């Protein structure tokens, strides 16, 4: 019986010739990731268990991104705990203020992820790296601690949903619209415990950034991981970034899928998820009557350079609507710098927006753009749960960077198409 791409990677890392959905395995890890919220909890568990070494100081990444630069004393203490742990064990990949970025934008940029690898992160959006053809999944702090100590984690081998992509996206419809559409189709638990394996001729035309965005939100369909085949687009991205050899795995032609979903990319339109679930999708065009107070462009979902470029193309030479707060957060320092060098930062400021250094801040209601009672935000982030960005009666509308930028100009949910 054939294996899916995910199953092949897991089998290889478990030292097994083959695995089947439902098997419980222990797999070797190529990277273990944590951030300023989850690492301190892992450190507590690690110390309590009495471990005195890590499996490999070069295969652990700690990225201080959620509340940084620290918003208060408590978050400063969290960072200090994580920082001290990294120093104690000589962990190579500690990314602190100045080098840090939003973890899932940063790690691929730094070349820390390559195809065929098996990795876990104590952050649910660790599934992002499936875009590069790696098996990558979010875990909790105890799994992170175990991973750091022994370099292995247990997994239940997932069944898969094959998402067959055909056609090409219309201009200004992006990866964000693809994944919101998919979640709208299958629901927030539509892929529960399963892999989302993307395939089909439509993949080739998707940019690396679009693939990152799509894989990033696999968790919002309940998936264990999202994964893309490795092709020329992947190779071009990895060139000059990844310094170690990698293995490309392909799904067997007779791989077994629990389900197949087909999406014709050419039929998609700009999509918005209304509160309070990502599956609550509507065409952006239907939101004309919904007035907004804020937009956020950024996050591990949409804080990459092409997202900034889209925002720039829509906002340059214009002013955002009165009463709308525009918050733009490039995902990493390299992207931030590029926005400055290319003059995009100036254009954002002239349009009436603020441009922050990289942080997860507003996405999780941490800081840097918290909503008051009843306020509404169009956001390129990934969750619109009750109270996610602030007050429990506030509302988050998930959308692409193009939709968020166009909505900033009008003060209402707006399809970006006429604003090109």
């Amino acid at each position, binding site marked *: 019986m054939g294996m899916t791409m995910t199953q092949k990677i897991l089998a290889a890392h478990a030292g097994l010739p083959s695995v089947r959905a439902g098997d*419980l395995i222990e797999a070797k890890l190529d990277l273990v990731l944590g951030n300023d*919220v*989850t690492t*301190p*909890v892992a450190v507590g*568990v*690690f110390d*309590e*268990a*009495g471990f005195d070494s890590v499996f490999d100081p070069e295969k652990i990444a700690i990225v201080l991104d*959620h*509340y940084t630069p620290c*918003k*208060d004393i*408590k*978050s400063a*203490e*969290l960072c200090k*705990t994580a920082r001290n742990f990294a120093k104690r064990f000589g962990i190579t990949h500690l990314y602190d203020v100045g080098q840090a970025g939003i973890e899932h934008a940063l790690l691929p940029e730094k070349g820390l992820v390559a195809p065929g690898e098996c990795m876990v*992160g*104590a*952050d*649910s959006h*660790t599934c992002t790296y499936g875009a590069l053809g790696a098996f990558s999944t*979010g*875990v*909790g*702090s*105890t*799994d992170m*601690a*175990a991973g750091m*100590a*022994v370099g292995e984690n*247990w997994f239940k081998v997932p069944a898969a949903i094959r998402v067959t992509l055909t056609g090409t996206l219309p201009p200004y419809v992006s990866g964000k619209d693809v994944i919101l559409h998919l979640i709208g189709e299958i629901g*927030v*638990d539509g892929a*529960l*415990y399963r892999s989302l394996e993307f395939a089909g001729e439509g993949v080739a035309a998707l940019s690396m950034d679009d693939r990152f965005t799509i894989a990033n939100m696999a*968790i919002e369909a*309940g998936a*264990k991981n999202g994964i893309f085949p490795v092709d020329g687009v992947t190779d071009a991205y990895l060139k000059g970034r990844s310094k170690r050899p990698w293995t490309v795995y392909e799904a067997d032609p007779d791989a077994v899928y629990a389900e197949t979903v087909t999406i014709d990319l050419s039929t998609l339109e700009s999509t918005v998820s209304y509160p309070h*679930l990502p599956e609550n999708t509507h065409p952006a065009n239907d939101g004309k009557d919904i007035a907004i107070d804020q937009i956020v462009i950024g996050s591990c979902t949409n804080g990459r350079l092409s997202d900034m470029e889209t925002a720039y193309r829509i906002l340059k030479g214009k002013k955002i609507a009165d009463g709308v707060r525009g918050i733009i957060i490039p995902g990493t320092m390299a992207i931030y710098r590029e926005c400055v060098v290319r003059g995009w930062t100036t254009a954002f400021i002239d349009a009436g927006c603020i441009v922050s250094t990289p942080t997860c801040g507003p996405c*999780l*209601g*941490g800081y840097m753009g*918290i909503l008051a009672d009843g306020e509404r935000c169009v956001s390129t982030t990934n*969750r619109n*749960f*009750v*109270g*996610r960005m*602030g007050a*429990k009666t506030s509302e988050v509308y998930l959308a692409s960077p193009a939709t968020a930028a166009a909505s900033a100009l009008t003060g209402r949910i707006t399809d970006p198409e006429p604003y090109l």
Partner: protein
Amino acid sequence: MNTKGTVFKYADNIDTDVIIPARHLNIQDAKELAAHCMEDIDASFVTAVKPGDVIVAGWNFGCGSSREHAPLVIKTNGVGCVIAKSFARIFYRNAINIGLPILECEQAAEEIAAGDTVSVNFDTGEIVDETTGKSYRAEPFPEFIQKIIRAGGLLASLRKEA
């Protein structure tokens, strides 16, 4: 192992942001953190809940973030067991890893009402609604996971192997 207590009932897709809002994740003390459990959907939960009580919920309980703080605040509040139609996978792992008993049972999750008295036997998977007299049987954990639970959590099980 058993628990017996009063049921707190919640809907489908209870996410980790309502179980413990991220605005409090800068708190490191478990008790201080636990005081904010469920505050955005059920402000009375933390004052009403007693040791041994049971949370009963619908599909996809614990969806969203990977924060281990979520099962931790439920456990810290004394909840003896969470019964749901299904659990989001990271929450499921985290609950096992930190030793919060959870059971998947669609019929029990559907029929048991808020305020009922429920007893749960984790060894057999038997759930009894003592208010209605009905009993249910949840799927037991696979042996691999039972081993982790018997050892007292993931780290303890790793230490045992070492």
